């Protein structure tokens, strides 16, 4: 009997604890002078590095917008960022979105990792809070929502993305490969695709292979070699690539695997024209360059890149370098920075800041061309909610510096391909 009684006591205690929990997220809606935006990224956990870059990029953009007078058409209302951390766990994409929405945010931005982003997207639809995906490449996130709106299961699409999708990354990479080979007057035949078998790597590799199949170019993907990410050793994988007698090795790496892959390629003395990758985020970071040095020289990779022909970009990049402790203004910081400006543009044009559907109407008609990233045109959203003009740029490490080399209009320098013989 005692036990039973105690059982209930515990229950009561537990409930009391729960009530305290219920109490803590006090809604702070009493300040009308700001427009709150929930900005959620993985700032701890496995993806902490890009997540922190995103958060800083978004914060800098908001600071810049506020310094310039806020949202002018709405009485100069300032942007206030309510930040959240997914810890690289999808469930926190939802929890954090729920939290910031309860703190009065009327728009969401995030969240780098596709799992968390999809959880946020479902919440955005459910709670009718417009979401701008600053980074996350998995195609289904927007496509699924668009489909359910089209099929009438939902009325309005609240989820839009200003970032290349996996398939558009692939299409662009294949296109750049073709153009560069042609421009260089080289005709590699055998390409070995090597990729990290994680969400990012597989998404990129799939897009690349599908685009290759569709384009049917003169070169062939003779072998595709995925490795578990993060790897502890890649020497056998490289030996396998070597055995396939490649003209070009096309790697898709994460920073951790890049640290293994590139030295190993050099070590194994593979005779080929060069390394041209469909995507290696972070390769251009000072830390990677310092750790890899000559192993990176002449490596070409296709990544979303800032438009450094724009003087404003250089100024922001310089400020970013200072505030981040020496980091490059890159894909992550750059797209989060632009994302915030796209949001500001939407808010300027929105009929009302109170009505989510009014914000969505403004989103749909976005035509924004003041972004700092390299785009293929203004930021617009297609029927899926994606920006078809969000494209990657081919960069190359030349004299230990990352330089945009393709497409031509973005190039700051001419690429070197095939690479000179050592």
């Amino acid at each position, binding site marked *: 009997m005692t036990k039973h009684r105690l059982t209930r006591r515990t229950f009561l205690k537990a409930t009391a604890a729960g009530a305290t929990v*219920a109490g*803590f997220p006090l809604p702070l809606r009493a300040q009308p002078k700001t427009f709150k935006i929930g900005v959620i990224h993985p700032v701890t956990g496995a993806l902490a590095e890009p997540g922190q870059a995103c958060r800083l990029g978004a914060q800098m953009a908001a600071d810049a917008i506020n310094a310039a007078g806020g949202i002018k058409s709405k009485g100069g209302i300032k942007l206030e960022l309510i930040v959240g951390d997914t810890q690289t*766990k999808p469930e926190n994409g939802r929890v954090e979105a729920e939290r910031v929405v309860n703190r009065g945010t009327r728009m969401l931005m995030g969240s780098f990792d596709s799992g968390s982003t999809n959880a946020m997207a479902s919440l955005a639809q459910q709670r009718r809070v417009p979401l701008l995906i600053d980074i996350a490449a998995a195609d289904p996130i927007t496509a699924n929502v668009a489909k359910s709106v089209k099929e009438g299961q939902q009325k309005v699409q609240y989820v839009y993305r200003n970032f290349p999708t996996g398939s558009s990354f692939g299409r662009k990479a294949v296109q750049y490969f073709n153009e560069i080979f042609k421009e260089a007057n080289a005709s590699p035949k055998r390409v070995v695709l090597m990729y990290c078998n994680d969400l990012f790597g597989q998404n990129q590799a799939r897009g690349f292979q599908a685009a290759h199949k569709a384009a049917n170019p003169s070169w062939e993907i003779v072998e595709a070699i995925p490795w578990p990410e993060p790897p502890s050793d890649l020497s056998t994988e490289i030996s396998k690539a070597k055995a396939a007698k490649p003209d070009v090795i096309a790697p898709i790496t994460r920073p951790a695997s890049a640290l293994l892959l590139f030295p190993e390629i050099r070590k194994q003395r593979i005779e080929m024209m060069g390394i041209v990758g469909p995507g290696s985020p972070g390769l251009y970071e000072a830390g990677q360059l310092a750790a890899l040095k000559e192993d990176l020289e002449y490596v070409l990779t296709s990544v979303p890149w800032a438009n450094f022909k724009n003087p404003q970009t250089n100024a922001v990049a310089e400020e970013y370098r200072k505030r981040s402790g020496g980091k490059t203004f890159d894909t992550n910081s750059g797209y989060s920075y632009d994302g915030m400006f796209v949001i500001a543009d939407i808010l300027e044009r929105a009929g009302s800041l109170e009505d989510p559907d009014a914000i969505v109407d403004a989103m749909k008609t976005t035509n924004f061309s003041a972004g700092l990233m390299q785009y293929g045109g203004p930021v617009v959203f297609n029927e899926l909610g994606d920006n078809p003009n969000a494209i990657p740029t081919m960069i190359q490490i030349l004299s230990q510096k990352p330089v945009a080399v393709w497409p031509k209009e973005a190039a700051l320098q001419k690429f070197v391909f095939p690479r000179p013989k050592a």
Partner: protein
Amino acid sequence: MRWAGVAALAVLLTLPAVLNSYAVTIFILIFFYGFLGQAWNIVGGYAGQLSAGHAAFVGVGGYTAAMLSIEAGLMPWVGMFVGAALAALLGAIIGYLGFRFGLRGFYFVLLTVAFAEICRIAVSNIDALGGPLGLYITFTGDPRQFQFRDGRVYYYIALALMLSATATAWAIERRRFGIYLAAIREDEAAAEALGVNALKYKMLAMVVSSFLTGLGGTFYAFYLFSLQPNTLFGIPLSVEIIIRPIVGGAGTLLGPILGSFILTPLAELSRLYLGQGGLHGAHLIAYGVLLIGVVLFLPEGAYPRLRRVLQRSRLAPVSGPSHPKGCPQERSRVAPVSGHLRSEPGSRPPLQKTLLVARGLSKRFGGLQAVAGLDLAVEHGEMLGLIGPNGAGKTTVFNLLSGFLTPDAGEVSFRDRALVGLPPHAICRLGLARTFQLVRPFPRMSVLENVRVGALARHPQALEARARARDVVERVGLGARAHVTAGTLTLAERKRLELGRALATEPTLLLLDEVMAGLNPTEIEPIIRLIRGIHASGVSILLIEHNMRAVMALSQRIVVLSFGEKIAEGTPADIANHPKVVEAYLGDEYVRAAPA
């Protein structure tokens, strides 16, 4: 006091009406992890088999339901049971391998981790399952598709999941199943000796646990709308599943829930208050420190501590036994069955043949021939003494007879059944019970609970077994100590308990291994009387004993073992005067003392 539980439930049911959606979300997580923790608790807590790969069951359940929904249009409400069934199948496979091959403790931990990792790697490489990119579920808000526009629906589903897992755990806990699991956790060999089929019950626990966990997979998938192998099969999720019940108190009914009510909000709070500044990671440091603190200051978990604190405050004014005077069930059930035990000592077959016959029994350990070609017979109703110098192989004989060891050669028949190859629990159920030389009580159970484990062999109803156990406890003279934790008993009491536990299985033949060793003469006398009484009630007894006076006094016949061989057999008088025995074992001193 039932109202307290009802009140708690009422509060939980009405909370969503007053909470904002973020608080609702936190409760959803509390319930969901409470649910997963409770599911884990069945095998990890009650049965004490530490699985650190429970994420695999979440993954299998979630992927199955999601694939069935995406590819075949099957409603997740149905798919979740298909997924849970597959998770249970995986649990059965892992459990069978682990338990059959006797993997305990850390080895079982690693086996489960390895299986979960294999699942993760496999799914990461299967394109049809989306590979590492995973599966994406479209939000439609269609309730048939397990989707809701109102977050509070998820709240009630998660609450229902947690309550159903808790109800399952409760039902298990108070039945033979749960009592057996606790016995297995405390001491598997001792449980086997009391007729517990440890493999079967551990398997059952694993299957129930993995089934429930598999249900959780569907909730996870359809609440978060995407599935990736790294999150659904990964080690971090497995860790999330186990820390809450451990913090709350593994193997207790409310531990997993309490653990979730403590840790889930704390994780949120620390992220909220420490995760915003520039020090990324500070909140996880705080969380880690908290876990360390729990281990250092609440080493059995939060719930047992809480229970003790409440108990103290409740019972302080009442000077009396530290345990309740008895549940109503007990009082009502004791009367009709008491007295039953003595009148019917086991289900005795008609006296025709020898009760137990062992022929040519041999066992070798490396270079040591422990038992060599031993022939042994115990007649119905007999009290046979088995003596011999240290290392003569007496306990090995017991282990061979009771199934703990398999003989290299020879056969054993008991009531005309061949015993060789049967597991200990089956032999116990045939009516052959044993005690252990080094007593093996279930230390964290009370005396009564210990004996009840034995009684359950004949009386599968927990209440009836409890009543039987009460009789036995009285009979072995521990009535006043019935509610004391076995770990705190004196040696003499433990010996009685050991005897009582074996007796509670209502054996035809009782194997007593040195029940008097280590006791002083005043303690030995009552034990001798007790053994006589048991024998008089019709139980045949085979006893190993070093106390010569006792053996001589008790035994009708004695077998002498030396270096694994039988060197003499006969009445106590014969043995006392047998020259070989005198020479090999008893020595001059005894011969001189014997006539006295």
